[in-house]
């Protein structure tokens, strides 16, 4: 009997201390930093007030920036929606034997950090890019056929990188469509458009709404494209970085609050709609029946979209790999550079200083994911098992960064940790090594949490009871039964988080210092210092890491992607 009480007290202590640690971390690194930013946005030379915000909103240039940001979000949704839905329809109803390889190719932009894609696009379509120069040469033009800059160029990059959310979500939703409905409708002579409107659209609506949120969020927070090819097109994220660089933290904070509010309100609006219209249908067994005829305008259009898409997805990777084996001088001077060399890679391998950013990025990403998992795995478990007010509150806090663009998170951290903080054990974190892994961990929380929650929900509830009835306490069961059985889901989420972090650019630009200079920053500075070769070789190494990771994810989480 004494022993039994002892076990109970032990597991109670364990739970209690876990909640204290969790509350400490979430308050210290998410809630308080955000409050610091809000307070900062009210801070003026003489006390606190609304004058920062008033000044900001009365400046037409700044209003233009806000408008641009929203426009970019909307344009992302529009182009990615059209492209993603068409691709998903084609792949579901029309793709033949080539399906699997095309599917993997179409998913691959998810795995390549945005900043690498942008750099590669510049090598292709920029002023002296291969495609630009090629067209000039082919048609004997005296000047470039287009200027790869501004709003159009940004949307162009987004269309070929951010469509993946739409594509994947809708591809998965289409798997659960009841094909007999489509057959029946077609049998009654209904046109394809009507079948789409009446049968398919209602089924995929929830997936569409989710994708709208994600794509809009990534559109308004995108930084690498507007920063590198934006020209005069300014958006909030680029302006936040500029304000911070000029040490105008009050302005940066005002901009962050506005960006956060835009992001949050669009998310809430769409979630309201999905609650209203998008009842998620339960999965049905579906015999995959394909329509036999593969003709018609729509089909041809889809074919063209898919071919163009694949070329556009493969080209930047091919270009970056090719150029990474060319010496920088011929990249700069020839249309199709041919001075092959291994020098770019040798420099990275030999010079510790050049290798350092790569090591930094890998180290910081792994740390961030490890910390993120340590927080999200137990929370997901507690939420699924007990629900309850407190668990749901923690869940909400963990999901909060979902509504926070990267620049928001970074500025929050600056405002909270540019002075000594009790949450950092009375240290200032800014300028130190740990601030970046912390930032990466915060952005990864929602992603990690969701994949863990799905994994926990997937395990047979009786497993835990079986373990208990055999005499195991809660902690033993968690380690020996729960963790091993959700490991594939944890791994898939963790690797995806790792990939997102390894090439992260926005927060890195705001938070890096001498001790933690990450690879994305090195890529951009090397490019700007005309050391193109090294920049591209970095890119190739990161792409290789990401593709290996992609293979692992597909291995762990087949269900979700195929």
């Amino acid at each position, binding site marked *: 009997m004494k022993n*039994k009480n002892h076990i109970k007290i032990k597991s109670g202590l364990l739970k209690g201390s876990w909640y204290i640690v969790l509350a400490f971390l979430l308050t210290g690194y998410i809630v308080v930093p955000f409050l610091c930013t809000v307070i900062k946005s009210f801070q003026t030379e003489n006390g606190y007030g609304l004058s920062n915000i008033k000044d900001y909103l009365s400046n037409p240039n700044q209003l233009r920036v806000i408008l641009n940001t929203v426009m970019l979000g909307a344009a992302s949704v529009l182009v990615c929606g059209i492209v993603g839905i068409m691709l998903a329809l084609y792949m579901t109803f029309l793709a033949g034997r080539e399906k699997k390889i095309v599917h993997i190719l179409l998913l691959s932009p998810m795995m390549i950090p945005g900043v690498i894609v942008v750099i590669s696009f510049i090598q292709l379509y920029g002023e002296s890019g291969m495609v630009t120069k090629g067209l000039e040469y082919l048609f004997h033009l005296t000047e470039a056929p287009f200027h790869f800059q501004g709003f159009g160029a940004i949307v162009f990059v987004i269309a070929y990188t951010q469509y993946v959310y739409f594509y994947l979500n809708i591809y998965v939703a289409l798997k659960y469509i009841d094909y007999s409905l489509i057959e029946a409708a077609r049998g009654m002579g209904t046109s394809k458009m009507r079948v789409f409107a009446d049968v398919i659209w209602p089924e995929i609506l929830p997936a569409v709404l989710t994708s709208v949120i994600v794509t809009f969020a990534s559109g308004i927070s995108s930084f690498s494209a507007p920063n590198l090819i934006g020209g005069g097109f300014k958006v909030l994220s680029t302006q936040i970085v500029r304000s911070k660089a000029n040490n105008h933290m009050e302005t940066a904070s005002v901009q962050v609050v506005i960006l956060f509010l835009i992001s949050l309100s669009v998310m809430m609006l769409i979630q309201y709609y999905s609650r209203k219209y998008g009842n998620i249908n339960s999965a049905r067994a579906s015999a995959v029946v394909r329509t036999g005829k593969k003709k018609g305008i729509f089909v041809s259009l889809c074919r063209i979209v898919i071919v163009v898409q694949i070329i556009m997805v493969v080209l930047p990777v091919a270009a970056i790999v090719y150029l990474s084996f060319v010496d920088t001088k011929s990249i700069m001077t020839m249309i199709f550079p041919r001075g092959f060399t291994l020098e770019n890679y040798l420099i990275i391998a030999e010079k510790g200083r050049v290798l350092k950013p790569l090591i930094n990025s890998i180290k910081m990403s792994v740390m961030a994911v490890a910390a993120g998992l340590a927080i999200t795995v137990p929370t997901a478990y507690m939420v699924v098992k007990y629900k309850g007010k407190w668990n749901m509150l923690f869940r909400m806090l963990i999901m909060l960064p979902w509504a926070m663009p990267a620049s928001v998170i970074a500025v929050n951290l600056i405002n909270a940790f540019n002075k000594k903080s009790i949450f950092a054990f009375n240290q200032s974190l800014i300028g130190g090594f740990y601030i970046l892994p912390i930032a990466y961990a915060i952005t990864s929380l929602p992603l990690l949490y969701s994949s863990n929650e799905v994994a926990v929900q997937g395990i*047979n509830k009786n*497993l835990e*009871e*079986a*373990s*208990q*009835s055999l*005499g195991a306490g809660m902690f033993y069961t968690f380690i020996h039964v729960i963790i091993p*059985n959700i490991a594939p889901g944890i791994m898939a989420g963790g690797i995806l988080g790792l990939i997102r972090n390894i090439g992260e650019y926005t927060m890195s630009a705001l938070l890096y210092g001498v001790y933690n200079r990450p690879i994305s920053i090195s890529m951009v500075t090397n490019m700007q210092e005309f050391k193109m070769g090294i920049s591209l070789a970095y890119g190739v190494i990161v792409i290789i890491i990401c593709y290996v990771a992609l293979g692992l994810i597909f291995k762990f989480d087949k269900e979700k992607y195929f």
Partner: protein
Amino acid sequence: MSNIVLKGISHAYEKEKVLNGIDLTIEEGELLTLLGPSGCGKTTILRIIAGFIIPDEGAVLSGEADITKWAPENRNMGIVFQNYALFPNMSVKDNIAYGLKIRKKGRDYIEEKCREYMKLTGLLEYEKRKVNELSGGQQQRVAIARALAIEPQMLLLDEPMSNLDVSLRTRMREEIRAIQKKIGITTLFITHDQQEALSISDRVAVMNKGRILQIGTPKEIYDEPERSFAADFVGTSNYINGHFIRPEQLRLGQGGEKGIPVVVKDVKFMGMYFEYTVVCTDDSGKAQNYCVTEINRGKAYREWHAGDTAYLYVNL
């Protein structure tokens, strides 16, 4: 080991009351079956005994001790779940050894016990297999071996046959009964299948809508059903003069003193026996149907045909 007593157990999920004053004693070493339709509260009783649910009212006693509020991990109950709940990340042997490792038994002891229970359940050659490489029947054996290996004070089985092919069910229930008798473990068996309940149990408790309607040996339950639900749920029955009478306790004849005059309405030939539906018109002119079965005794047997008039006798 000792007996398990449920005293006045009532329980509600949210507002819906699913158990209503359950009193039940499971004697030491017996196999008691809870028999009742789906949703009547069988699993809830099992979960209360196992400790996953603390009942709103009543107590669970193990011998002298009141264990109502003990945590499941302290009760030492072996459970075979409906879906077996084997640990997919472990081999057959590791599943069986799991409870022993928690009890911090020595390596040799664990090895010996695993072999003993694998032998008992016929699993010796599958020791190294992953559990999802096993057939349904083999998985069930692992579940049983795992539950028994901790030498529990009681074995709880929740509809263990429901995931098996019909052809395998009879065999497995015989094996379970043989194992149970061999080690003499107190067992609670749950099923909604009356054949299963009657053939495997020392005693059967018939349940409906959160109540126990009757407890008795299989023969008592079948021969002397106390209420119409128990009578109908366990086989077919006729209600004559305030008694439930089984079709095989009735007989048709050609005349005599005490017979009730009837007309044969329908005949079903079932191979081993004939099933007749006969009608009797009572004094008030109300028609009453009875079901009668007679063993097919080959050529010597006099068959009845629809439309025949006959007399109905009760064999008590």
